[in-house]
């Protein structure tokens, strides 16, 4: 656990995430297009989009431009902090006090930034969007928290390098709670990364892109970037928590295997997103309530040692 070796590890993690996130998003768009029987945009399209948005004029409008700026930069900042913290097979993550709890806190903060953005705009569309986002956050964030807590219960510690290393499977017998948690997380993963069938807040056709209505130019670029990075970060946490086996490989291959697993998860997300329709907010909440019951059952099982 060298403190000095941690810093380049965190930096390389962040830079890799920044470079790779639009590429994964481009692959997502291309595969969605192929499933819809058409030739989609080139894989590098999100890079072009972000560069073009950076070159546009920045119109500050809405109720409160200062909150707009704050919300935008805060969302990308929380995601990049998580990129430094989550272990991506490169180096030991930083293990200061309150590790996994910090991760849960940062995840929730990232979703709250969307709320701030919608409030700053103040138009009717954005207010509807953030009310739906609020309901979704209340139903979703506990699921992730329970997943991490189950891992912590089994590993008897909250340190990140222990919890984020497949700790849900660390029971003496058959890991029942681990399997239940994997099922719950897979079923609700689409909602975390804001893709169909659960992209209620970003519903383009219904509420004109919801909270992002008043953003233009560079701020919109940062927001879109934050959404792309969210997909990568959540996939990385999922892989680190539930699929950590690295087959005993050495350094460069371990890292590539990690990113391959993340890529496979992104492909799975794409396939589900391309073949489903959007759920209404009340249908989605009912679905998450069912998943919450299953998660609480898993928590009970974990506390009894199963």
């Amino acid at each position, binding site marked *: 656990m060298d403190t000095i070796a941690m810093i380049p590890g965190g930096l390389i993690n962040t830079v890799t995430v920044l470079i790779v996130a639009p590429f994964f998003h481009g692959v997502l768009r291309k595969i969605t297009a*192929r*499933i819809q*029987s058409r030739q989609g945009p080139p894989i590098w399209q999100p890079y072009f989009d972000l560069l073009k948005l950076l070159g546009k004029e920045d119109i500050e409008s809405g109720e409160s431009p200062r909150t707009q700026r704050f919300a935008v930069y805060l969302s990308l900042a929380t995601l990049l902090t998580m990129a430094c913290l989550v272990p991506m097979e490169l180096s030991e993550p930083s293990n200061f006090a309150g590790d996994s709890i910090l991760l849960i806190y940062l995840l929730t903060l990232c979703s709250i930034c969307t709320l701030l953005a919608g409030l700053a705009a103040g138009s009717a569309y954005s207010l509807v969007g953030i009310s739906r986002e609020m309901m979704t956050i209340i139903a979703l964030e506990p699921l992730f928290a329970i997943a991490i807590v189950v891992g912590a219960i089994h590993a008897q510690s909250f340190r990140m390098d222990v919890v984020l290393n497949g700790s849900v499977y660390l029971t003496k017998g058959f890991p029942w709670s681990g399997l239940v948690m994997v099922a719950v997380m897979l079923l609700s993963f689409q909602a975390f990364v804001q893709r169909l069938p659960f992209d209620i807040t970003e519903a383009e056709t219904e509420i004109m892109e919801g909270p992002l209505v008043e953003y233009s130019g560079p701020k919109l670029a940062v927001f879109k970037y934050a959404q792309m990075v969210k997909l990568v970060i959540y996939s990385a946490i999922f892989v680190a928590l539930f699929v950590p086996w690295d087959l005993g490989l050495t350094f460069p291959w371990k890292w590539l295997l990690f990113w391959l697993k993340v890529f496979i998860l992104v492909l799975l997300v794409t*396939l589900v997103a391309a*073949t489903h329709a959007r759920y209404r907010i009340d249908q989605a909440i009912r679905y998450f309530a069912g998943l919450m019951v299953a998660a609480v059952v898993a928590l009970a099982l974990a506390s009894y040692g199963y």
Partner: protein
Amino acid sequence: MSIMGKFKETIICLKAGRVTLPYPAQPQIAPPTFRGRPIFDAAKCIGCAGCANNCPAREILVFDPCQEVRILKYLGRRCTYCGRCADVCPEKAITMSKDFETGTGSIGDLQQQLELFMSTCQRCGRCFKKPSVLEQLKMTGYRLDDLRDERWIFRSQSYLEGEPLVDDIRIELD
């Protein structure tokens, strides 16, 4: 909504392959009954202005600078490609071509202007008979297809009456 249903859906779509037309790379031909841009043939036109009379959008404008010359101008801005001009023309001088790739940066690119010498009457030697005083009243100023009033054509009739009907909106008047 079952998982198998979704798999079947995906496989059906993937089997369809790529249905996108490679349009700008390969030219696309319009179907045989397509009415595209009208092309005016000056060699066949006799200058009767039947097309101008019949155009529902007042797109073909007529002007007689002197006794023997008639100018017919097709503006191309609001043409709806209905084909009435081609139907009415007695000499079949207008053809509705199959041309649809007409996007342009300046709308004046679509205009076609014909200046024609009209043939004279065998008996009196003039192209048109001199209109009576009543007919002169009817013809000046109120003919909507007069080329001299081209710049008025794009306004609604409220402007022709002399007072703008909308004062709160910034519209440029002539």
